[in-house]
């Protein structure tokens, strides 16, 4: 055995008596390994001679108490809540309560859902709407709209359905070939519906579409117009406004 193998054998042995004969032969001829071996076995003996502490006399008693506490904590909620409930309420009362809760939940859900789908028509006023990107095509001769500071905008008109229109000041920022592209940040007191009307060319039916504008919201109205449905074609567009609210 060489020194490395002998030291590995010393490390594995729990005491000097467990050494292999090969290791013992090497130790007899190698003072370094003999020194290493002696130090290791002395250390092992020193550690093994360390006094052993024992558990205190009340160890079992304390452990039992601890286990009892842990059991109580584990089963505490699961056991006590139903017991508490059944102490005060019968099964019928419990079932009635659960049914009432379920009914209220369903009713509230339905109410809130339908309320969100219904268009609101209680708009009080409108202040500002901005047409930020309008690229008008060369308009037909029948164009009826003139926007302040911009000139004619033949494609953009709006109607009111029920109430008198409230005129919105508009600003057109750009022109172009597309008839309608509106981004309208609207500052209003409540949600409102804007109806935009595009008159047809040469007596063709016009197009209209409504859009709900949320309070302080912004409506971007551009490419959607390509899919708008044909509206009341014969209705003439108002001549005094481009976008009106309802």
């Amino acid at each position, binding site marked *: 055995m060489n020194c490395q193998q002998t030291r590995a054998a010393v490390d594995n042995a*729990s005491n000097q008596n467990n050494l292999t004969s090969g290791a013992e032969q090497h130790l007899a001829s190698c003072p370094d390994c003999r020194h290493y071996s002696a130090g*290791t076995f002395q250390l092992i003996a*020193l550690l093994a001679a360390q006094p052993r502490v024992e558990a*205190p006399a009340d160890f079992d008693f304390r452990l039992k108490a601890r286990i009892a506490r842990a059991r109580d904590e584990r089963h505490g909620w699961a056991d006590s809540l139903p017991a508490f409930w059944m102490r005060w309420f019968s099964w019928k009362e419990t079932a009635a309560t659960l049914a009432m809760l379920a009914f209220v939940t369903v009713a509230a859900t339905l109410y809130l859902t339908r309320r969100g789908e219904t268009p609101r028509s209680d708009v009080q006023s409108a202040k500002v709407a901005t047409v930020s990107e309008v690229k008008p095509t060369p308009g037909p001769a029948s164009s009826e709209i003139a926007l302040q500071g911009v000139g004619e905008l033949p494609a953009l008109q709006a109607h009111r359905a029920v109430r008198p229109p409230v005129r919105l000041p508009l600003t057109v920022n750009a022109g172009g070939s597309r008839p309608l592209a509106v981004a309208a940040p609207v500052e209003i007191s409540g949600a409102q519906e804007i109806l935009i009307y595009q008159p047809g060319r040469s007596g063709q039916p016009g197009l209209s579409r409504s859009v709900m504008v949320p309070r302080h919201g912004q409506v971007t109205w551009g490419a959607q117009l390509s899919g708008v449905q044909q509206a009341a074609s014969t209705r003439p567009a108002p001549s005094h406004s481009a976008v009106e609210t309802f």
Partner: protein
Amino acid sequence: MSTLTLTAGLNDAREVPETQRPSVDPVTGETPVGEMDDHALLEATRTGDELAFQEIVRRYRNLITNFVYRMLNDYDRAVDLAQETFLRVFMNAERYQANYSFSTYIYRIASNLAISELRQRKRRRLVPIPTFTSDKDAGEVEIDLPDTRQTRADDSMIEDERRRAVGRAISSLPEKYRTVVILRDIEGKSYEEISEVLGLSDGTVKSRINRARNLLKDKLQEYL
């Protein structure tokens, strides 16, 4: 207030009779808990046999307390964590799988608790006051010296000092070296058992033990 009793020597043989073959009571047809192996005791504990669990506690309470004490060098906390170890064994008895020996299982729980405690102390930078000294000063320690025939007070003091030095040296080891050297050289575990307890390879265990011994040789060279 706790009483610390110190006795010399390695494991008490009566505490680990796991490999003994149990005998059956001819009257009741049942094996007495004292003769059941550890797996059978834990199986009985699952079914609510409190005597079986008491037997487990009886067999391992001193071993686990001593092991945790060597890890922490704090007797009161060692007792507390030893109890926590048995509590976990009891509460998780249904989930125990006999892939390893029960000894490996319970030492694994205890070593995890002790290592967790050491890490918490490291974070809090707590320095434990060795119970060995403080309890002795309070007159609450009963010490059985291994060599009772040694009557010379000087020798006794030297021996006492040597033990304290060894305890301090072990406590100063990094946690990963401390655990393996305690399991190997104080608890007398084999390399395979240590590998299973700590979830390490044999090579890592041997390397760490070698490193730990070299560190201890440096710290205890005046006693070697």
